[in-house]
């Protein structure tokens, strides 16, 4: 027994030493040594969002790739100023986000964050970034309430769901002429937020709305499908992400529901078609405050550089994340090396990026008129239809 106790105390000792070392590591890493003729060495721009896991990680990967590409192009162009990329893979999970945000705040070299990608994780991580003073630009967290918390570090590079949801409602009523609509969500901050605004908007437009409830991650949705079928609706609006939208759309089609299927930017990914199959996804409408594919001639340099680096073309929000990163890099190029200085720069200086010009209001929202684009799935391909 004595032997065992001895071993236990050794483990305890090693454990506490590791803790002390970690604590010291945090305090010592604040010293900045200036790199040869350029910016301080080790400056890091992070990406925060789902890169793996069961919360539709492709949306995060699109943005992480855009961020990485911007940084690597910057490093090539500015050999004297090397910027480090660091991924914070939250798995899109609000439960994991706070700890990860603390890690980012604790790492003094992290001076800016692109993300968090989702609204649910933003809700819990952004207060921590705000306290730590790290400027963030999210390229996809579209829940409107995020901008009304007084976070000075918050910036959103796309229009929020106060623009997207009414656009969906407008599209459903005027383009699809739907009189009866079922609205389903996934109970997430983003999905339920979007669905709730759509519900209110549709009711204002005197459309009959049925809400058969929120779906989970079981991918088995017979009760929702049956409720929609019994209600005999003209359109189904889903607020949530592609991993659940796919099987839902498939099971609706299989059960013989012919109503149009509409979902927001969370479902705008080829993963939706993979889950729903080509026939199940056929004719589905997917909206976003951005385009899924970049087709303009001036975007093609970005598209080919991205494709060369990641062996896949850019997808939703890759371009926005690329622009957001370049906005941060412009601040660094202007000699802003601290979190506070970069935040002030991004908040006050407008930046002409690849897709648009980014200038932020005091609450962190993008200035200018928001544009919501509608896409349609045709033969398994996501095609742009036009503004909603």
């Amino acid at each position, binding site marked *: 027994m004595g032997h065992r106790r001895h071993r236990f105390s050794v483990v305890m000792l090693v454990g506490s030493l590791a803790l002390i070392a970690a604590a010291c590591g945090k305090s010592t890493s604040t010293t900045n040594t200036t790199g040869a003729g350029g910016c301080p060495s080790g400056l890091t721009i992070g990406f925060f969002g789902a890169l793996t896991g069961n919360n539709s990680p492709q949306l995060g990967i699109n943005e992480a790739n855009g961020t990485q590409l911007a940084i690597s192009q910057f490093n090539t162009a500015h050999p004297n100023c090397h910027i480090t990329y660091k991924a914070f893979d939250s798995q899109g999970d609000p439960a994991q986000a706070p700890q990860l945000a603390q890690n980012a705040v604790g790492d003094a070299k992290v001076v800016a964050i692109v993300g968090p990608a989702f609204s649910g994780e933003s809700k819990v991580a952004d207060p921590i970034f705000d306290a730590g003073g790290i400027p963030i630009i999210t390229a996809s967290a579209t829940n409107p309430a995020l901008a009304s918390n007084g976070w000075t570090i918050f910036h959103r590079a796309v229009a929020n769901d106060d623009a997207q949801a009414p656009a969906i409602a407008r599209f459903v009523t005027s383009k699809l002429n739907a009189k009866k609509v079922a609205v389903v969500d996934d109970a997430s901050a983003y999905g339920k937020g979007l669905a709730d605004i759509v519900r209110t908007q549709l009711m204002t437009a005197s459309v009959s709305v049925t809400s058969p409830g929120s779906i*989970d991650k079981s991918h088995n*949705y017979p009760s929702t499908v*049956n*409720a929609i*079928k019994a209600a005999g609706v003209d359109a189904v609006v889903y607020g949530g992400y592609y991993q659940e939208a796919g099987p839902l759309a498939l099971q609706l089609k299989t*059960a013989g529901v012919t109503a149009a299927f509409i979902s927001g930017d969370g479902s705008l990914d080829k993963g939706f078609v993979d889950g729903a199959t080509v026939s199940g996804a056929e004719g589905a409408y997917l909206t976003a405050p951005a385009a899924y594919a970049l087709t303009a001639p001036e975007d093609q340099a970005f598209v080919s550089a991205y494709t060369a680096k990641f062996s896949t073309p850019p997808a939703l929000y890759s371009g926005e994340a690329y622009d957001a990163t370049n906005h941060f890099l412009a601040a660094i190029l202007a000699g802003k090396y601290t979190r506070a200085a970069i935040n002030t720069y991004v908040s006050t200086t407008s930046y002409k990026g690849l897709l648009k010009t980014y200038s932020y209001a005091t609450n962190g929202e993008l200035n200018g008129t928001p544009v919501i684009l509608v896409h349609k799935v045709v033969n398994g391909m996501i095609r742009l239809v036009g503004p909603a």
Partner: protein
Amino acid sequence: MLAAIHLTELYKQFWPSTVDGVTTGAIYALVALGYTLVYGVLRLINFAHSEVFMLGTVGSLVGAAAVGLGSRDPARTGLALIGTFLVCLVFSMAFSGGAAVILERLAYRPLRKRGASRLAALISAIGASLFLQELFAQTRIHLGPLNVKLLSRNDHFLHNLIKPSKIFTLPQGAIVSVDKVVVVVASVIMMVALDRFVGTSRLGRGIRAVAQDAETATLMGVNIDRVVSLTFLLGGLMAGAAGLLFMVKIQQTRYDVGFILGIKAFTAAVLGGIGNLRGALVGGFALGLIEIYGASVFGAQWLNVVAFVALVVVLMFRPTGLLGEALMKARA
């Protein structure tokens, strides 16, 4: 927000709900058998059984690839379909059965041999469950010739195993399709076969003997280790079949697919009376129906609430579940 109660919806969706409730319940029941078998023999709740099921779904992916069913191919018909289905079944059952036996050897037997408490085995079960999930989430296997890329955290699809063609329509437009019939019929066949095996065969008698009184069974010459292995194997085979049927119906899987389904199947086992094979069957179908009827009344987000309230209510009046846990003893 309080639940809005729509009793008329229960009536309006009765037939479609019943068809889907029975289909889902059949899968619950098959997985529940694994929990109940192991509990009956070892008084252990094998929390890693949900991952044994997950491996069954993976097995069916490998099986489909082995017979050259590509992801873009149309579903096969006739004899080719039956052959493909059977190959997938063999792969699923081999994956799950093998995993269950290995799991018992590595995670439970060493503890049992040292006379560790049941609590230790339970912790080991939870550990094994997490280990298997993460193992398959972290490992990337590329079966080149079979053209399968497996086991990352992504979803894996098998959309074209059985085409869900309509056979006939019940009232209220409730579609009875090939896939649903296959799920229900195949699982009932599996369950009857298992019940016969445990009830009448010599090996089954061994299982029942150990379940009743392990010590006496040893004295009578029953090899406990072999019986325990066999129990895990049988539970694994059932979970493998369930994995294939899940792929027929839901058409996709992922490293964490067993989590929700495992909880449901365990609930079904307890609802029917854990340790009781026929109880697992009754519990599975009952749970599948209760939750979908409940969801039609209260809304989809109340599905799990309804299921667990039903469980609590049943246990309040029948603490040993619907059929009681003593059937194994009574019939021995």
